């Protein structure tokens, strides 16, 4: 199969799954088999693209020109490859987990759930493989809209309110800020393609560059940079698999991915570094990291604490992008991968605790390590990775970003990373402490969640550790990304 076919398949497979699922609405086993087969097939397709990209290839696929300037086209570059790999790989784990979770919870309208999930994955693939800003924007919105029914899935008043906030903030920011930014870029650069070295160098003034960076960063509300982060904690009302894959991996990563991609391929980090008008982003990202961590400290609801932790961790990626150096870009890309596997582990664990022992709040977690040993072991791994303790994946990205900040003497960024590491430790370690050291009321009985839930979270926890030991693939991709940055803009 040619790489172009593979790109097409990566988009078609989840779409076909979404179309097929309603046909098997009455037969849950077939329906779930279809989801699983689709997930595995998607991962296989993405995996087949990997060698091409690692060999330095940039497979492209032009689909259609909507109007001059708006072209639907795909092009696989290292960062998109990395994102596609993570999202499709974790979809398998998440599908297994969903089956366990949705059955254990006896959730209603499960078919709609799986359909929206598949469409969201198609959207994620589109974002990851997009060859220009318009295609990215198109699938970005597909992702927003397809996840709205998932956020409101419970149908309660709280879910509806969260859905409103979700839709208004994500759709609102992307329409009010991102769309004009696209228009501006098109009028200024007369192209929306992603090109190594960027397309905006020399075509707009430095002030305009800073302003546009603002439009892109805040327009991408999925990245949850403060003050546009409110939707994320609110969206935690969704079923846990949604929080796990979408609000720890696909949706939020689509946000930071967009920021990183725009910084590298639209602005060009050299252009931004020379302009100097984008430096504010370091401070915005830094403040988000620290403030979100501080808020996380005060949350008792486990999912909410994880949500604020996500807000904070996402801004590491933004911080990495904002330093405008190749090393920091490597760090940012690595952190996308590391945070994805760690945070999905944490959310899987939270869901597993909910199903196994009906625990949602941290204050109820005394001695839970004895009741759900597998879950809490995985949780501990995820928590350590969030703090950035070796040997977990979380260490790598942080380390690169820290080194990059030291190298250019950006002491504010260094301070932020140090402080936030302490904060991370102080909101994750007490949970672990409670779970293992304190004893809860009553007899300790083993009440682990069903195996389809436990298996994925153990696997993702294992990957978190393995990624530290063998970070070859993400590292090589990240390094290729940073090298393509160094290729200066033509002329």
């Amino acid at each position, binding site marked *: 199969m040619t790489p172009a076919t593979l790109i097409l398949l990566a988009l078609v497979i989840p779409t076909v799954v979404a179309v097929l699922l309603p046909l098997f609405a009455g037969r849950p086993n077939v329906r779930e088999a279809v989801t699983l087969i689709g997930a595995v097939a998607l991962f296989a397709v993405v995996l087949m693209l990997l060698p091409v990209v690692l060999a330095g290839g940039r497979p492209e696929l032009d689909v*259609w020109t*909507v*109007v001059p*300037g*708006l072209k*639907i086209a795909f092009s696989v570059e290292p960062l998109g490859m990395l994102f596609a790999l993570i999202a499709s790989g974790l979809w398998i784990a998440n599908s297994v987990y969903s089956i366990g979770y949705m059955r254990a919870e006896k959730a209603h309208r499960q078919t709609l759930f799986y359909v929206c999930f598949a469409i969201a994955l198609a959207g994620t693939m589109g974002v990851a493989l997009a060859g220009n800003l*318009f295609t990215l*924007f*198109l699938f970005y*919105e*597909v992702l927003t*809209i397809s996840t709205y029914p998932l956020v*409101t899935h419970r*149908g309660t008043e709280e879910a*509806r309110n969260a859905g*409103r906030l979700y*839709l*208004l903030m994500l*759709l*609102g920011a992307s*329409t*009010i800020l991102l*769309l*004009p930014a696209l*228009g*501006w870029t*098109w*009028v200024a650069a007369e192209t929306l393609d992603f090109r190594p070295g960027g397309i905006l160098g020399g075509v707009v003034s430095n002030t305009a560059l800073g302003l546009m960076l603002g439009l892109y960063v805040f327009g991408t509300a999925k990245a949850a940079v403060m003050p546009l982060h409110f939707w994320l904690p609110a969206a935690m009302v969704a079923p846990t698999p949604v929080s796990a894959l979408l609000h720890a991996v696909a949706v939020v990563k689509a946000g930071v991915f967009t920021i990183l991609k725009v910084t590298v391929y639209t602005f060009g980090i050299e252009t931004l570094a020379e302009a100097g008008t984008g430096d504010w982003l370091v401070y915005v990202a830094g403040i988000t990291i620290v403030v979100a961590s501080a808020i996380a400290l005060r949350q008792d609801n486990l999912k909410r604490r994880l949500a604020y932790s996500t807000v904070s961790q996402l801004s590491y990626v933004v911080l990495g992008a904002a330093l405008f150096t190749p090393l920091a870009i490597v760090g940012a890309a690595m952190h996308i991968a590391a945070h994805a596997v760690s945070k999905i582990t944490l959310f899987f664990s939270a869901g597993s605790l909910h199903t196994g022992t009906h625990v949602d709040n941290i204050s109820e977690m005394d001695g839970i390590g004895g009741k759900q040993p597998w879950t809490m072991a995985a949780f501990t791994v995820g928590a350590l990775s969030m703090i950035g303790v070796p040997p977990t994946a979380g260490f790598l990205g942080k380390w690169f970003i820290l080194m990059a900040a030291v190298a250019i003497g950006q002491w504010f960024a260094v301070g932020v990373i140090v402080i936030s590491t302490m904060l991370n430790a102080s909101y994750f370690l007490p949970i672990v402490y409670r779970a293992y050291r304190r004893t809860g009321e009553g007899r300790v009985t083993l009440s682990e969640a069903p195996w389809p839930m436990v298996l994925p979270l153990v696997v993702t926890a294992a990957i978190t550790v393995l990624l530290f030991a063998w970070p070859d693939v993400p590292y090589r991709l990240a390094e290729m990304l940073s090298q393509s940055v160094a290729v200066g803009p033509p002329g």
Partner: protein
Amino acid sequence: MSEHLPALQVVVPLLGAVLAALVRRPGPAWLITVVVSFATPVIAAMLLVQVLDGGVISYHLGGWDPSVGIEYRVDVVNALVLLLVSSVAAVIAPFARLSVLSEVPDDRVAWFYSMYLISLAGLLGIAITGDAFNAFVFLEVSSLSSYALIAMGRDRRALVAAYQYLIMGTIGASFYVIGVGLIYTMTGTLNLGLIAERIGDVESTRPVLVALAFIVVGISLKLALFPLHVWLPNAYAYAPSVATVFLAATATKVAIYLFARFVFSVFGAGFVFADLPVTEILVVLSVAAIFGASTVAIFQSDVKRMFAYSSVGQVGYITLGLSLATVTGLTGGLVHLVNHAMIKAAIFMGLGAVFYRVGKIEFDDIAGVGRRMPITMSAVVIACLSLVGVPGTAGFVSKWYLIVAAIEVGWWWLGLLIVLSSMLTVIYVGRFFECVWFREPAGEVARAGEPPLEMLVPICILAAATVYFGIDTELTAGMAERAAVALLQGVR
């Protein structure tokens, strides 16, 4: 045969109307409507092909010279409008049978179709004619029949709505004809092309300025430009579903075409936009329409009324595009004219199907209807997404052109206002969405089901079209751009 296509475009529906009135029985009258409605887009398509191959078609009615007789003149601009209007009619025709039977008393069904076809003939006539006074006659032909169509609504408020529309519409048409009279005294001709040639000599005289004012205000009443829109919400809300679909998709659009024709082709963009502060006035009114009407839409309790107010707002986008008087802006306006016609036809048709099943259309009465009519409501939701301007839908293409046009002329704030206003659309569409999907079906809704296929298929076709024309824009944006270029160059 093919040289008489321009005449047939109008004559076929007109004859159909007479036949429908003569047969008197619902079934045959509907059949005639279907035949006519399918014939008109074929004629329009053939005209479009002729125009694309051989340039402007000039058809002299009765063989009279254009200086004294009536000339039908088809160029890219009105070929597009003809195709739009007739295609919408063709999609409505199959849908109409059951909807009309359920909403209009049996003895009036044939009259309904007769009026419907006259209205169609009038709208096609406005679009095709190259004669200012003939346009007035067709304007009144389409208006009078649409008053009658609206008055056939089941609610007695339909009568009042029709009456108010009649008063406003007649004032508008009279304003228009006063303006035409003044132009006639100054140039001695009613042919649009000849007026355009001669008006240059007298363009800054007082009668011509007054004529421009009368014509602009008169047509603005017809196209429901804010604040001359007050007739529209009630008329759309209480008319029979089929009439609402037809009027929402076509009537204001044809009026906008006439507006563009006069402003750009006859008076000339240089005179209207460069010498007079028309751009400023239109931009202010358009923005007021977009924000005012969209805000009012949020607070409606009747779903049809809500989308009627939304129409007033959407007309604002179109006039906004026209007012910029650049190729991009005009393309945006024209492409939105086409896209909005499809979007609103899909939405109102979906609501018509709900009305057919539930018998009511207030928010509280149709709560949870999405659970019972998932396909219909999914189609409506897709159309709504297009209304919002989500990328990948037709609505996005129009918004993109408008935003780029605003940025091109350096009006950042305008681009920002356009995107801000989409948020208002999100709010009222979101409200509709929550109502039909999240609330539990009760009462009539609980017993409702999908409408019959003959209603469902047209809805799905239109919903699919709003997505299709978001991807393949050759026919919409491509044609709109050619039309924009043609308009900016003037008639000849």
